[in-house]
Every structure is written in structure tokens, then in C-alpha cells.
């Protein structure tokens, strides 16, 4: 049994199938990449898993229990946390309070203030933001804002972490240190599903890759298999016929 599973997950926006009949299974401790061209339905699938959107059909299960159509805060409390493609921080709240909020709100049991503060300090150390803890989130550069989103999500104590393009817009050095961070998070026991366009990172960190195209699952497999997959190459680069012309 996977920790997170989808069966014929479908989402229609009017007549448009943003996600159609997608099956997936993510095992505990895996790092799985979700790739596909723009408009493939990656973020929609994330929104369905995290409860921002309700499914039109199919079922999403977490630890064997159905979670599709639960509210975002319920899903977070169950143990699935996420970051956002366009950073959504609390601009006028300090860095440490972001993580503090995550730890007091993200669990079903009431967390003591002192415990939450101790946990925040550890997480800020992990993402390398200890020196910035009293700064307001809006004053951080993009790379640090993205790290803060990860820290805030981790503060809720997730078993599964959904990362939506955390490396978009970062420099090569920043991508490298982010890759290290993701490995560290996984060794802490958290399963990771990530949407990413930075191929260098995807190939380096993912155990498995799922490819979406026009809302449908196109391929699934190990990074080296996906890199050689004819259908995936066609989707990303066009067919030979196009290339020759």
C-alpha cells in the first residue's frame, strides 16, 4: 500500500478535463517528480490532493483512507503539507512566526507555545534562515522566501510534502543547495512529491517520475527511463517530422 494513492482522479473545469483518469501510487519515503508541459494539470493535481479543489471523479487516498473533497485544513492536519507555485507567505509576519504558526496549527492536538518555538528554531536552522528569524517575510529575497515556505510546511509535521516548483526562478547554486535540502527532508522520513521544471534537479533527486500531458498520465518510471521515453520526448520537443521541417 502506498502512503498516497490516486485512482482515476478526474477534474473538469466546465468542459475541459484538467486532470483525467489519473492513477498514481506514492510509497512511503519516496521522492516522486511530477512533470509535464505547461497546462498539463500538475498544479491542478496538487490542488486536488491538498484540498484546494474538489475532485469531479475518482478517489485520492492517504494511508488507505479517502481524502478527496476534505477541506485544506483537514488534509494538512492529517499529514499532507504543501508549498505554492507563486509564493504565498504572510508578508507582515516574521520568519520565525511563520514556522511557529505552522507548528501550532498543523496538528490535531494542541501544541504548547514553548514546544512550538523550539521546533521552529530547529526548522529554521535546517532551511538556513536562523539569521533571518525576526525579519518580515516580505523583506526576504525569493530564494529565502521559498525556503521559508518549505519550513512553514514542515512545521505542520507532514508525512507527505508537496512541493510546487520550489526551484523555479532560482540560480544554479541555489538549486543545488535546495536539492541537498530536499534530500535532508527525505532522510527525516518525509515522503516528497514535487512539481518541477528544472530538469537538472528532477533527474538528480527523484526516485520516480510521473509525466502528465493534457491532464492524462503519459508515462511513469525511473528518471533514466523517462529521459529515453519516446512519447515524453515528443511532448517536450515535438515529433521528428516537425524537427526535420
Amino acid at each position: 500500500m502506498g502512503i498516497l494513492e490516486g485512482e482515476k482522479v478526474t477534474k473538469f473545469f466546465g468542459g475541459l478535463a484538467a486532470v483525467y483518469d489519473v492513477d498514481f501510487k506514492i510509497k512511503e519515503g519516496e521522492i516522486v517528480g511530477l512533470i509535464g508541459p505547461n497546462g498539463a494539470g500538475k498544479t491542478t493535481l496538487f490542488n486536488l490532493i491538498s484540498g484546494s479543489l474538489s475532485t469531479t471523479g475518482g478517489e485520492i487516498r492517504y494511508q488507505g483512507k479517502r481524502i478527496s473533497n476534505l477541506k485544506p485544513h483537514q488534509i494538512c492536519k492529517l499529514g499532507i503539507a504543501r508549498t505554492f507555485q507563486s509564493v504565498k507567505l504572510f508578508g507582515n509576519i516574521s520568519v520565525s512566526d511563520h514556522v511557529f504558526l505552522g507548528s501550532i496549527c498543523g496538528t490535531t492536538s494542541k501544541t504548547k507555545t514553548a514546544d512550538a518555538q523550539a521546533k521552529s528554531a530547529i526548522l529554521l536552522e535546517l532551511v538556513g534562515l536562523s539569521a533571518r528569524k525576526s525579519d518580515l517575510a516580505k523583506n526576504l529575497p525569493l530564494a529565502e522566501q521559498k525556503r521559508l515556505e518549505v519550513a512553514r510546511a514542515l512545521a505542520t509535521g507532514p508525512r507527505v510534502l508537496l512541493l510546487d516548483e520550489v526551484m523555479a526562478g532560482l540560480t544554479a547554486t541555489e538549486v543545488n543547495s535546495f536539492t541537498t535540502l530536499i534530500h535532508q527532508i527525505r532522510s527525516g522520513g518525509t515522503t516528497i512529491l514535487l512539481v518541477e521544471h528544472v530538469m537538472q534537479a528532477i533527474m538528480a533527486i527523484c526516485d520516480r517520475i510521473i509525466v502528465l500531458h493534457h491532464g492524462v498520465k503519459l508515462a511513469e518510471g525511473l528518471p533514466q527511463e523517462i529521459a529515453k521515453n519516446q512519447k515524453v520526448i515528443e511532448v517536450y520537443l515535438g515529433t521528428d517530422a516537425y524537427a526535420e521541417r
Partner: protein
Amino acid sequence: MDNSTGLLVKRVFSSLLVLFLATLPFYMPPYTPLAVTSILMYVVLTVSWAMFCGPTRYMSLATATFFGVGMYTSAVLGERLPFPVVVLCGSLVSFLVGLLTGYICLRLRGFYFAIFTFGLNELVRNFVLWWEGRVAHTVGRWVVLVDSLTIYYYMLAIVLLTVLVTYFINRSRYGLILLSIGEAEEAAAHIGINVTRYRILFFALSCFFMGMAGAVMATKWAYIDPRIAFNPVLNFTPVLMALFGGVGKMYGPILGAGILTLASEILLSRFPYYYMLMYGILFIVIISFLPDGLVGLTRRWRKASVMS
């Protein structure tokens, strides 16, 4: 000045202010408490408005509604129950109407929320008007009179209660939660905050204090009808007062309500014909030059003194 001395100064200053207000009727002419009562009323309305609307940035234009609900409760129950119970009932009814309102407008954000709340006031006013005409066969109601000194002390107590509750909310984790909802509601939901529940609960809590003020003030005005109780002007004044004072800090709305009520009383007595005109100009100046209110001004001064 570091943080701890700053806090000490604030505490000493607010205790002195409370002491002054509590002893005021003993050495001031009898009309002074009367005038101060209306300042206290605006302080309650502004602080309770800012309690919810400040951090969450949901602009409610229904202060008059909940104030009026308190007034009508007071008018209906005034003869049957002792005054403290009447006041408590006024707050509770207002709280319940607040819960219901919060529940109905769950999905509304931004402008839609503001317009809904403004429409709510019209709805409630017209409903009461209809009810009084058709069912109760009356236009307005007489309210049991309470002497002005009692009203003064009740309002002072309500101010203290409202300010203390707001203070403790702001300092607690709930203050941080409300602020996070105002900053990025979607993100707040995804870190486990039941946004809907907090929105409804704290909106209703702010209504509780508005209703409480209404229940007391009704006895001062002696006669109310729907036009008086649900006067739409009162939907806007707390907003303007809070913006003038600045919503970033606890004392902003208090200062704003205090100064503007005082200013309008003075303008009204000195320049009865130009009063509204001058008040309007004052507002334009404030909004144009003090975007963060008085609180922003003190912050600018502090920055300047640090620089020099």
C-alpha cells in the same frame, strides 16, 4: 527607549488615563461625563471593529447593524429585566446575529464582503421597520431611562473590557492566526487553520461588544426607531476612525476614535453650518497624508530620531 521601558511607559500612561476617567465626574462639570460618554461609545465601536477587521482585512460595513441590535434588545427587554442583564442580553443577541451573518457570508471576500455587510444593515433596518409597523404597530420605542452617570460608568467599563480582550487576543496565538488570514488566507488554510471557524467566531466576538455598547447607549437616547438605531453613517465612522488612528497598533483605533469624536464635537458647536464641510476636508487631508494613520506618523518620527 528600549522595549521594556516603552511597555512600562504605556502601562503607567494607560493606568493614569483610566484613573482620570474613573474620577472625572467628581471634579468636572456635569456635562463633561455626558460628552465623554459619546467618545467612549466611538472608542468601543472602533476598537471592536478593528479587533476583527484590522488583522483579517475584512472590511465590515455593518457596525451600525450590531450596535442597533443591541439597542433594540435594550428597548424590548428594558422594562422586564435589571439593567446589567439587559446589557448582557444585548451583547449576546448581537453575538448570535454576528454568528449567523458570518455563516451566511462565508464565501465572500474583499469588496463583496464589504458590500454584503452594508446591504445587511439596510436589510435589518427595513425588516425592523416592517416588523414594528405590521406586528408591533409602532414606529419607534421608548427606552427605560438610566441616569447619565450610570451610563458613563457602564461605557467606561465596556471600553476597558473591549480594549483588554483585544489586547489579549493580539498577544495570543489567535492574534497571529487572524493576521495570517489577512495576509494570505489560502496559505493559512493549508497550514491547518480552520479559516472559516476563526472568521465567524471573531467576527461575532467583535459584534458582541458593538451590541453591548448599543444596549447601554439606547438608554441615553431614550427614544429609538429603526432610522436612529441602524443609522448607516455609523457603519462608516468606526472605519474612518480606525484608519485615522492606524490599525497596525492597539492604540491606533483608540486615538483615532478619541481625537475625531472630540474634533467633531468642537466643530459642531463652533461651526454648526460648516461642520460637515470641515469634517470632510479633515478626512481628505488625513487619508492623503497619513496612509498608515497616526500610528504610522509616530513610527516615522521614531525612525527619524534613530537616524539622527
